[in-house]
C-alpha cells in the first residue's frame, strides 16, 4: 500500500502520522525531540509505522483471539523495545565506566549499574505485565531515567560510587542512546513479543500479514518549528500554520478557527471550508503566555505540569494577574501568596491570564468563528480549557469548542494530508 507521511518536528516532541492511499490515518508516532533532528524524525516515523502495522492486524487478532490478546501483544512489543534500549544503555554505561571512571571505583561502579539495570528491567517487565499500570511518560528517556535515578539513589555510596557519579554516567549515555540508530521497528521486535505471550497460533497469519504488508512511503512532508532542519528538500516542507489548519479541519471538518498553544508559541489560525488558512497570528518573540510560562509556575510551586490544571479547577474565584511575563512568573506568584491569596485562586488567575493573551491573538486573526478547535499541549489542561470557554462565551457568544485527544498530532496530520493531496493532484 502507498503511504503518505507527515512529520512535525516540534521544540519538545516530534510527531509523525501515516496515511493510507485513501487518506485515512494508519498510524501515529511520537518521540522526544533531540539534537539529532534526522533521528528524531526517523524514530517518530518508525513509531507511526509500528502503530500502522498494529492497526492492520488489529481486526483479525481481535476476531481470532479477542481484544485482550491484542493488548498483551502490544505491551509485549513495547517491553521488547524497552529492553533493547535498556540493554544498549547498559552497554554504553559500562563502556563509559571503563573509559572514564577511576580504577579504584570502576569495579564498584560496574556492579552498581548492573544492579540498577537488573532492577530496572524487572520493574519494566512488571509494569508491562500490569493490567492497570501507573500512568507515566511514553518516552524511554523519562521512564528509564526515573527508575534509574530511584535505584541509583538507593544504592549510591557518598564515599564511593556516589549518586552524582551514577547520574553523570546516565546523563552522558542517554543522549548517546537517543542519538544513535537502534533497531526498534515492527519486524525486529514482533517475534520476541509473540514469544513473550506464548506464540499463540491463532494470530499467526494476521501477524504474518501485518509484517509482510508493503507500506511504501510515497511522499513525506515535514513541518514544525524545526522544519528547516529536516533533511527534506524545500518542496517537502510546509509551515506548521498551514499544517495545523488542515489537520484541525480534517479532525473537525466544521472548524473555522484554530488556537494552538504550545511550549514556545501560540498561534491563532482561521481556515476556510477546505482547511485552507485564510489568516493567522502568532505571539511575538516574547514567550509570555505560552506553555513555557505554566512550566515555570509548576517549577516554582514544585509540582508537576499536569497537576496545575486540576489544582486551578478547585478554585472558587480567580485572582487577577496582570503579567504573563515568564521572567516575572515566580515573583508574581510569591507576591500573591504573600498577600494571602490562596494557591488555587492564583492558579485560576494565571490560566485566565494565559488565555487572555491567546484571546488577543485570536482577535487579531479575525476572532472566533463558529466551530473552534483548540490544539497543543495546553489544550490538555482543563483549567486552560475552562478559561477559554468562559472568555470565548463572554466575548463572542456560545461557540462549539473542539478538543481532540490526538490534538498533539494535528500538525503532523496536516503535513501528511499535504503529502497526500499533492500526489493525488
Amino acid at each position, binding site marked *: 500500500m502507498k503511504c503518505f507521511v507527515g512529520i512535525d518536528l516540534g521544540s519538545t516532541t516530534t510527531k509523525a502520522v501515516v496515511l493510507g492511499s485513501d487518506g485515512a490515518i494508519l498510524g501515529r508516532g511520537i518521540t522526544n525531540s533531540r539534537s539529532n533532528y534526522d533521528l528524531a524524525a526517523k524514530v517518530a516515523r518508525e513509531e507511526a509505522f509500528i502503530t500502522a502495522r498494529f492497526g492492520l492486524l488489529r481486526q483479525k487478532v481481535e476476531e481470532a483471539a479477542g481484544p485482550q490478546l491484542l493488548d498483551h501483544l502490544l505491551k509485549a512489543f513495547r517491553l521488547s523495545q524497552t529492553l533493547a534500549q535498556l540493554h544498549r544503555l547498559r552497554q554504553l554505561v559500562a563502556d563509559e565506566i571503563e573509559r572514564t571512571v577511576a580504577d579504584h571505583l570502576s569495579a564498584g561502579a560496574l556492579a552498581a549499574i548492573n544492579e540498577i539495570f537488573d532492577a530496572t528491567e524487572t520493574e519494566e517487565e512488571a509494569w508491562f505485565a500490569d493490567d492497570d499500570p501507573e500512568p507515566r511518560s511514553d518516552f524511554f528517556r523519562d521512564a528509564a531515567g526515573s527508575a534509574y535515578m530511584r535505584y541509583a539513589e538507593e544504592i549510591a555510596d557518598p564515599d564511593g560510587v556516589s549518586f552524582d557519579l551514577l547520574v553523570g554516567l546516565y546523563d552522558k549515555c542517554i543522549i548517546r542512546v537517543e542519538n544513535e540508530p537502534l533497531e526498534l521497528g515492527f519486524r525486529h521486535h514482533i517475534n520476541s513479543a509473540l514469544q513473550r505471550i506464548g506464540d499463540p497460533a491463532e494470530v499467526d497469519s494476521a501477524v504474518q500479514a501485518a509484517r509482510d504488508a508493503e507500506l511504501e512511503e510515497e511522499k513525506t512532508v515535514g513541518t514544525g*518549528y524545526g522544519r*528547516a532542519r529536516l533533511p527534506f528538500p524545500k518542496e517537502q516542507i*510546509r*509551515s*506548521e*500554520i*498551514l499544517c495545523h489548519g488542515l489537520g484541525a479541519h480534517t479532525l473537525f471538518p466544521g472548524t473555522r478557527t484554530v488556537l494552538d498553544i504550545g511550549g514556545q508559541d501560540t498561534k491563532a489560525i482561521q481556515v*476556510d471550508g*477546505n482547511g*485552507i*488558512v*485564510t*489568516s*493567522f*497570528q*502568532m505571539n*511575538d*518573540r516574547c514567550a509570555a503566555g505560552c506553555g513555557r510560562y505554566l512550566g515555570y509556575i509548576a517549577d516554582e510551586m514544585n509540582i508537576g505540569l499536569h497537576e496545575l490544571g486540576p489544582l486551578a479547577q478547585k478554585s472558587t474565584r480567580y485572582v487577577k494577574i496582570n503579567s504573563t511575563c515568564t521572567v516575572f512568573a515566580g515573583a508574581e506568584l510569591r507576591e500573591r501568596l504573600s498577600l494571602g491569596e490562596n494557591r488555587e485562586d492564583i492558579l485560576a488567575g494565571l490560566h485566565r491570564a494565559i488565555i487572555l493573551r491567546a484571546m488577543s491573538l485570536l482577535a*487579531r486573526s*479575525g476572532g472566533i468563528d463558529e466551530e473552534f478547535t483548540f490544539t497543543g499541549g495546553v489544550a490538555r489542561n482543563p483549567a486552560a480549557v475552562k478559561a477559554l470557554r468562559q472568555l470565548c462565551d463572554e466575548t463572542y457568544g456560545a461557540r462549539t469548542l473542539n478538543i481532540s485527544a490526538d490534538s498533539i498530532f494535528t500538525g503532523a496530520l496536516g503535513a501528511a494530508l499535504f503529502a497526500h493531496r499533492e500526489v493525488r493532484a
Partner: protein
Amino acid sequence: MAAEKASWVHKDRSMELQKKMIARHFERLERAPRCGEPVVYTFVPGNLTELIRSFGALPVLPEINALQSGMRGKSKDYIAAAERAGHSEDVCTYVKCDIGMLKSGNIGPTGTKLPDPDLLLLSYTGCYTFMKWFELLREEYNCPTVFLQVPYQGDGRLAPEHREYITDQIRKDLIPALEQVTGRSYDEDLLRHHLGLAAETEDHLVAVLESAKNRPSPIDAYFGGVYYVGPIFSAFRGTEEGVEYYKELRSEVEARVAAGLGPITPDGPLNDQRFRLVVEGPPNWTSFREFWRMFSEEHAVVVASTYTKVGGTYDFGFRHDPDDPLGTMADYCGGCYTNLNLPSRIDMLVTYIRDYEADGFLINSVKSCNSFSAGQLMMLREVEKRTGIPGAFIESDLVDPRYFSAANIKNRIESYLQMLAARAGAA
C-alpha cells in the same frame, strides 16, 4: 553561492553613481568646518534641502546615519553606549544609535568624521521622537535650533490655516535663522532653481516607482526601493547630481522593463516573480540582506511600499513648485507619509494593492517607531477588510539587532506566502 554572490556584486551604473555621490558628500562634510561651509542637521520627513542648499549650507540627516550604522553592524555598540549613558531600552533606537555614534567620535557611514552642526533644523513632521532627538543633540552641540511645527493631518488633509502656519514659520523664523547662521541673505531665485531641479528629480523617481506595475516588476520597491530613494531622501533632492542619478536609474529600469527582467536581489535577478507584495513600515537594517532574502528566496517581489514615502508622497502627485516656494515647502512637509493620519495610510495601502495588482501585503512593525507602529494592527484589519486579501504581520526593529529574530520572522513570512499560494491554488 558563488554565483549568487557574483550577481549581487554586479552593480548597475546608478549604484556606482550613488556610491560616489554619497562619498563625495561626506568628504565635503568632513572638510566643511575648514572650508567654512555651514552644516544643518535635519530629518528626512519634512527636510527642506532646497532651502538649506540655497543658503550654501550642507544637510546632515541623522536617521540616514543611524540606518547606515545599522547596516554596517555598528548600531549594537552605539545603542549600548547610549543605554549606558541613561537612555531607556524602550525608546527609538535611531536616537540611541546616533547618540552612541556621537559619543564614539562621530564617524559617519563612509568613515569620515561628521562636522558639528551650525544649526539644528527641527522640522517636526510626523514623529514625536524628532523633537526629543534634537533637544538631546542640542545638549551636545550647543548650537541654535529652529523648530518648524508641521501640523499633523488629523483630518486627512493639510488645512489652509496649517499651510499658512508652516509658511509663516519658514518666513519669520527659519529664513532669518539660516541667514544668521550662514551669513547669506535669502535668495528666492536660487531657491526656485533648486525647487525646479527637485521637481525634475521627483518625476524620475515616480517613473521608477511606478515601473513596478509591470510584470515582472523591474524593481523591488522596498528592499531595492530604499536604495532608490537614498539620494532624494538625504542630501540630493534639488541638485544637479540628484537629477543625473535619477535619470540614469530611470533608464536602467526602463531597459529592464523592455527586456522583461526583474530586479537584482541578494539571490541574483528575480525574474520569476511568484508573489507581488505591498509592504508597510520601515525595514530592519541590521539584518537587511537576510531579511530581503527571506522574500527573494520565495520569489516574492515588493511592488510598492509606504516606507519609501516618508520623504515625500510624490507618486500621489505632489511636486515641488518653483512658482510658490514657501507654499510648496509647506505642502511637501504636510504630505510626508509620517504626517498622514491612519485612515489616509490605510487608503494608501489599499490603493497600492489595487493599482499594483498585489497578491498580498505585509506590515513590518518596528519596536522603535510608535509613529509608524501604533495602530498598525488596526491597519492590518482594515486593509484586509477592504481588499479581501489577508495581510502578514511581523515584528522587528530599525537598528537594534536584539529585536531581529530571524527564525521567527522567516517562519511568519514562509507561512504567509504558503498561505497565499494555497489560497491561490484553491481558488
